[in-house]
C-alpha cells in the first residue's frame, strides 16, 4: 500500500498506462461492478430484445428459433387504424400537457417568490409539494370520488349553479381535461422547486439597483427574475421534450376505462393492453420501438438546438 501512495497522488501527472492506473485504483472500479452488471442485465439486454420486432416471435420457440420477418410488423403498424388512433391521442394529450402544464409552475414559482410572509410561504410550499408523493392510483381514487356523478362535490356544485351533472371519467369530451387537470394538481407544486432553486442564484444586488432606479415589482420580475431563470426554463423544456411521447402512461392506466379508450389510449397503454393482454409480442415491440426512437430523436435534437443557439444543454 505504502509503495503505491505516490502513484495515487500523482502530482506531476505523468502519462501512466491505462492498465497501471486501473490497477492502482482497482477499488474504485470494484465499486462500479454491481451498477454496471444491473445496467447490462436489466437495461441493455432488453435493447437487444428489440430484435423480436423483426421476428414472428413465439414465446415457446424463443428468440433463437422464431422466424425473421423483416419489416412486416412496421408495415402493419403504419397501416393499422389502431395505431393511428393511438398516435393521435399520444400527440394530443402530450401537447395539451406541454402547453398548459409547462408554463404553470414557472408562473406559480414567480408568484411564490413574491410572498413576503415566510410562514405563509412555507406552509403553502409544504401543501403544494405533497401531491407529487402520491401514486397515480391514489390520485385517481381521490378524483374519481370528487368528480363522481353520485355525490361528487364538483357535480354538486355544478348542479347548484344550474348545470347538468357531468360523468367526467366516462365522457369522451371531458376525459382529456381530467387527465390534464389531475396531472396539474399532482405536479405543479413540485415542479416549482427547480425554479425556486434558480431564483436563489440571482444576485440580490440587481434587485436593489432596480429599486433604486424606481422599478416596480412587475418590472423587476420582467427584467431580472425571468431572464435570471431563463437557462433553467430551457433546460426543463429539453427534458420535457424527451418525454413528449410518454403522455403519462401510468396516469392513464390508473384512470381510464373502456368507455374513453377512444380519446385516451396512448402508445404506452396500447402496448400494455395488446402486448400483455393478447400476447402480440412482436407487433407491440415494434410499436414500443417507434415510441423509443421518437423520444430519443426529440431529446438529441432538443439538446443540439439548445447548444447551438443558447450555448447550453443537458450534456
Amino acid at each position, binding site marked *: 500500500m505504502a509503495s503505491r501512495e505516490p502513484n495515487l497522488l500523482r502530482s506531476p501527472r505523468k502519462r501512466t498506462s491505462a492498465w497501471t492506473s486501473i490497477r492502482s485504483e482497482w477499488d474504485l472500479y470494484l465499486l462500479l461492478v454491481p451498477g454496471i452488471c444491473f445496467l447490462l442485465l*436489466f437495461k441493455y439486454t*432488453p435493447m437487444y430484445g428489440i430484435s423480436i420486432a423483426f421476428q414472428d416471435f413465439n414465446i415457446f420457440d424463443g428468440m433463437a428459433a422464431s422466424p425473421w420477418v423483416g419489416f412486416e410488423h412496421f408495415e402493419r403498424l403504419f397501416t393499422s387504424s389502431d395505431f393511428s388512433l393511438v398516435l393521435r391521442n399520444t400527440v394530443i394529450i402530450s401537447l395539451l400537457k406541454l402547453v398548459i402544464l409547462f408554463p404553470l409552475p414557472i408562473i406559480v414559482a414567480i408568484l411564490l417568490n413574491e410572498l413576503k410572509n415566510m410562514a*405563509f410561504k412555507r406552509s403553502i410550499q409544504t401543501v403544494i409539494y405533497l401531491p407529487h408523493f*402520491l401514486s397515480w392510483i391514489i390520485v385517481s*381514487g381521490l378524483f374519481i370520488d*370528487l368528480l363522481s356523478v353520485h*355525490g361528487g362535490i364538483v357535480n354538486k356544485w355544478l348542479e347548484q349553479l344550474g348545470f347538468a351533472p357531468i360523468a367526467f371519467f366516462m365522457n369522451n369530451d371531458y376525459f382529456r381535461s381530467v387527465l390534464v387537470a389531475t396531472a396539474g*394538481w399532482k405536479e405543479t407544486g413540485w415542479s416549482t422547486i427547480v425554479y425556486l432553486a434558480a431564483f436563489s442564484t440571482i444576485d440580490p444586488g440587481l434587485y436593489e439597483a432596480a429599486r433604486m432606479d424606481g422599478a416596480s415589482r412587475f418590472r423587476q420580475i420582467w427584467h431580472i427574475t425571468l431572464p435570471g431563470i431563463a437557462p433553467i426554463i430551457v433546460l426543463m423544456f429539453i427534458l420535457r421534450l424527451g418525454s413528449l411521447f410518454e403522455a403519462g402512461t401510468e396516469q392513464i392506466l390508473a384512470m381510464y376505462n373502456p368507455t374513453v379508450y377512444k380519446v385516451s389510449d396512448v402508445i404506452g397503454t396500447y402496448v400494455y393492453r395488446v402486448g400483455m393482454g393478447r400476447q402480440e409480442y412482436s407487433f407491440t415491440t415494434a410499436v414500443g420501438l417507434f415510441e423509443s426512437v421518437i423520444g430519443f430523436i426529440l431529446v438529441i435534437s432538443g439538446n443540439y438546438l439548445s447548444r447551438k443557439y443558447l450555448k447550453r444543454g443537458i450534456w
Partner: protein
Amino acid sequence: MRLSWPERLFNVFNYSFFTLMGLTTLLPFVNLLAKSLSSENAVVSGRVSLLPIDLQFGTYRFVLQDDAFLNALRVSVTLTLIGTALSLFVTTITAYPLSKPRLRGRKWLLLLFIFTMLFSGGLIPTYLLMHNLNLVNTLPVLFLPAMVNVYNMLIIKNYFEGLPDSLEESAKIDGAGNLRILFLIYLPLSMPVLATIALFFAVYYWNDYFNAMIYITNPSLKPMQLFLKELLAASSDFIRNAAINADAEMNTAPQSIQAASILVATVPILIVYPFLQKYFVKGVLVGSVKE
C-alpha cells in the same frame, strides 16, 4: 416602505391565489376523509361533502382487520424497505467512482449510464427478460431492475463533486484507501442528498403499481397500490365481501371502504414527509443548480 396601490392589489391577489391553491390541493383529502367516516346511508345518498355525516369508525376497523389489505400492506412495507436500502447503496457506490475525474474511461462509463435514460428496450422485451430469468411472480422483480436509477445517481455524483478535494487528499496522506474515504468521510458529509434520494426511492417503491401489474399475479405478493387499483375498479373480492359484510354488520358503504383504504395507504407518506422536507428541498437545489 409604503406600497403603491397596484402593488397592494397584487399582494391581495397573490395571497388569495395561494390560499385558494392550498385549499384546492387539500380538498380531495378532506372529501375522502369525510366519506370514510360517514354512515352508509349518508354516503350512498350522496350527502357527504366536506364534513362527515353520522360519524362512524367501523370502516377503519373493517379495513384494518381485513387479511387481504394487511397482506398488501406487508408486501409494500417489505418492498419499500428492501428496495430503498439496496437501491440507495448500489446507486451511491456507483456515483462515487464516477465523480472522480481521475477515473480512466469515466466519460465512456457515464455515457453507458446516460444512454439508458434516453433509450430503452420497452415494455415487451423487458417483460420477456424477466420471464426468461424466472423472476415473474417474485418479489425481487419489483426491485432488482430499479437498482440503479441514473437520474438519482447523477444527483449524488454532482453532490460528491461539490465536496472539497482537500478532504480526500488529507485522508490519503493518512493512509486511507478509496473505500474508507467513501464510507467514513464522504457518506457522513452527504446526509442531505442521501436522505433526499432515499425518499425518492422509498416513494418510488411505495407508489409503484405498474411493475406489479405486469409481473405479479399471485395475490399474496400484490403490493398496496395494485390492491387499491383493483379495489377502485370494484372488481376485487374484497369490495364484494365488504359490501356483504357491511350490510350485515356495519353501517358502512363500499365507497367508504375505498376511501378508508386510500387514506390508510397514504398515511406512511404523510408521516415521513414533513421530517424529510427540509432535506429534499436542499437536496433538489444541489441536484438542479449544478447543471
